């Protein structure tokens, strides 16, 4: 790798001096994401166009400098931390909605657009972009694509990759190509499908083509309160098994409920063991009957109380509680580590039971708030990183939870990605042959390994 001063000079020639950040303070601002991983970039560049991105990448390629595209830095697995140094590329200058094509139900955006900003603009046209990660207030669409973000409404509508139909991509040698497009089924391999969720290891996206849909006619949001977490989990399994696909099916446990109520005063009962947020959407016809069927399943599973949002304000209040849950829980202890192991929906009650056992075993509080309908857990393991023994137990507990998920027929990450944090857990899921196939994909896209090195793919066999 070339000398840092020289690198900075060369990059300034491409993007301009003011768009290369190098001070110690700036470097420290970009040494972390929402995981526990820390590592400093050598410098930060802010390109303003695809052409600048391409030139910076070409430069990095020629000098074998690692490069990572960063969005808002909300990554939960260390994926956006420059563990091997190099260039952090920010997309704050590439944040335009380029085209709103309601006629064809597509939008074209730059990667720096904030997810909720796009939704706000679309709402004025009566359209919606479905993926809704809890952090959508700050996350960028580029980051969402890199991680294949989910969110509550993914239960019915699918994750980011289901709504990403094409991309303008800068390859690792600086070449710019277009994958997919506004139309479906473009000939050849589904490169867009592989790029989404590749955690910045295959390419840098400079434009995204996304699917938008007309708003649904009617929405019904219900909150079901339970005295036992098993009954909550049992209700989730019962709803899915009954063949009802709600738009969302979210769950919170007592620790989360208390934290949320303390922080936001949304009216959650402090003594509830579990709360389910169930939302139905579609044509208004038949919705009353469907929601009564859901209520019936809740009652069969010993629900304590069901509250139905009577208006948008009440609906917003329920969702504010859910979307603010991570932040609220974050107030309980100095740090949290969140996992996102995922299991088949039928295995939810059994898996939760195991998570509580693990919490006891390691003597660490774990708050649970998760996409229950997807079987996508989010155990928030609470601790203080200054306590080294506790930190060790946290990592052991996290690994054990991931192992439990895999043993239940599930997987180690539903939406937060592998990054650095779950590299070792990849061996729970994949054989050396599976990993070898993925390695070939990496080599085809990025033969020199400059894009986000050391992430997502562990060595084919585990180091002894």
């Amino acid at each position, binding site marked *: 790798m070339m000398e840092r001063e020289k690198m900075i000079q060369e990059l300034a020639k491409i993007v301009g001096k003011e768009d290369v950040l190098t001070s110690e303070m700036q470097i420290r601002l970009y040494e972390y994401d929402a995981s526990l991983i820390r590592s400093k970039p050598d410098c930060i560049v802010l390109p303003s166009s695809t052409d600048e991105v391409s030139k910076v990448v070409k430069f990095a390629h020629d000098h074998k400098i690692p490069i990572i595209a960063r969005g808002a830095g909300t990554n939960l697995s260390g994926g956006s931390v420059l563990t091997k140094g190099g260039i952090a590329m920010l997309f704050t200058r590439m944040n335009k909605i380029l085209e709103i094509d309601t006629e064809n139900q597509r939008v074209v955006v730059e990667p720096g657009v904030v997810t909720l900003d796009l939704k706000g603009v679309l709402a004025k046209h009566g359209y919606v972009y479905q993926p809704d990660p809890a952090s959508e207030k700050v996350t960028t669409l580029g980051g969402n694509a890199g991680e294949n973000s989910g969110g509550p409404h993914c239960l019915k509508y699918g994750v980011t990759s289901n709504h990403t139909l094409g991309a303008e991509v800068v390859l690792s040698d600086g070449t710019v190509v277009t994958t997919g497009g506004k139309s479906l089924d*473009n000939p050849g391999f589904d490169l867009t499908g592989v790029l989404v969720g590749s955690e910045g290891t295959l390419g840098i996206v400079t434009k995204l083509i996304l699917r938008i849909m007309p708003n649904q006619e009617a929405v019904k949001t219900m909150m079901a309160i339970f005295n036992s977490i098993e009954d909550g989990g049992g209700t989730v399994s019962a709803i899915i098994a009954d063949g009802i696909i709600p738009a969302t099916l979210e769950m919170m446990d007592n620790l989360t409920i208390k934290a949320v109520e303390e922080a936001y005063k949304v009216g959650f009962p402090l003594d509830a063991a579990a709360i389910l947020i169930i939302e139905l959407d579609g044509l208004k016809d038949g919705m009353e009957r469907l929601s009564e069927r859901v209520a019936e399943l809740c009652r069969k599973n010993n629900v304590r109380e069901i509250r139905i949002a009577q208006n948008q304000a009440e609906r917003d209040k329920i969702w504010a509680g859910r979307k603010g849950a991570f932040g609220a829980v974050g107030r309980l202890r100095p740090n949290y580590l969140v996992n996102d192991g995922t299991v088949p929906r039928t295995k939810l009650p059994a898996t939760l039971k195991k998570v509580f056992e693990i919490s006891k075993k390691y003597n660490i509080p774990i708050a649970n708030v998760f996409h229950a309908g997807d079987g996508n857990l989010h155990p928030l393991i609470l601790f203080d990183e200054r306590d080294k023994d506790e930190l060790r137990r946290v990592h052991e507990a996290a690994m054990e939870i991931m192992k439990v998920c895999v043993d239940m027929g599930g997987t180690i990450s*539903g939406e937060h990605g592998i990054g650095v944090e779950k590299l070792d857990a990849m061996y729970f899921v994949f054989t050396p042959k599976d990993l070898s196939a993925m390695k070939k994909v990496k080599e085809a896209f990025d033969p020199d390994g400059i894009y986000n090195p050391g992430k*997502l793919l562990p060595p084919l066999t585990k180091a002894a």
Partner: protein
Amino acid sequence: MSNMEEGISALKGMVGEANVASDPDRLRAYSIDGLSPQAAVFPGSIEEVSKVVAFANERKLSLAPRGSGTKMSWGALPRKVDLVLGMERVNRVTDSDIDNLTLSVECGMPLAEMQKRLAKEGRGYFIPLDPPFGSKATLGGVIATNATGPRRFVYGSARDQLLGLKAVLPNGDIVVAGGKCVKNVSGYDMTKLLIGSGGALGILCEITTRLLPLTEAEATLILPFKELEGAAKFVREIVHSKIFPAAIEVFNGTAMAGVHSEAAAKAPYSVVFACESVVEAVERQIAELGAMGRKGGAVDVTTLKAEGHKAFWAALSDFPLALRQRDPNAVGVKANVVLSKFVEIMAAAEREAKGRGFDIALVAQAGNGIVQGYLPVGSDAAAKAGGIADFFGRIVAEAVKCDGNCIVEAAPRAVKEKVNVWGQPRSDSVVMKRLKEKIDPADIMNTGRIVA
């Protein structure tokens, strides 16, 4: 050739004597674009598939996977076909987790057979895929070609429904991608890479798919229109409404004649909806779509329910099958464009076909921007090849103008010799080529047939 004889006996050792065909007469049925393989091999398990593929890779024998044979006309002319790998015996259900709404099944299973079994499970379930050749196609063929049907409008395609798969890569490795969770970002999404990869990267052996419960109520509405423009205007109104029917199809008269002759007699174009939902919603859809249609110029509204509804969509799905039985040389093209432009493609296809003396059948998935066209060819393929190639070139150009592309899905050899069946080349083909080289360095998988 003695080499091949020895090879055939080795293959028989792997899959059993009875499961290797090497008699030239029998092999003709397995020829691809007129090229007969030296053997057709029918493994009975994924392990056997792995052995056969590893063997082919060592000897650099070109392999062409095959399900029930409905898509063998897909792709460019093969440079070489040594072995056809028949997957019909690899057809077990490996995990039926109905309460989780997922199913794992091996790829030789015919889709129709699986749907029949699922319909009888408990309250009744289905795999949300309704591709062409529905009565015959295997799951492997459907997924490898990413074949989709009308109800894609609400259910999406294989890339939205598949949660995981098991494949044999060219080196014989059995690899697993994804799993049975509805969300999964552990590693690269190899499932998406393999969907639609046309057997160029590996042999699809098992899929894990989402299931849905059969809907409470179903109905079909057929609304004939005198003009294509009128039909398009009406469709536009529905696509952007909140009514969300399960399918929105537009037929020209020739296509409708093959599916529902009564409707075809009423007007030259038809808009057809499938409605599938709870009872109340379907009743409202029938009422509103009908009323809006009449207001929009439909000359009639026919509602089909129960068996009539099922029969209509089954006939549409098997339309290309029936056509090919009558006319083995029939050409199939598929254009993909932004959804508002399906009408431009239909108009261009009718004009360009008519001008060259072809009575083209056209069906558009109007909410998805997919237009399928079927050209009758008959016996004199060589003489007509120039005209067909010309026609295809015009449609590709038109589709590219509409932010899309057009491919040939079936054509006699004489036509394929004159066109790039994959339409307009794309900028991302550089990556596709590198992927192909990395994963299949000896180039044994469907050699020459697939876009990369």
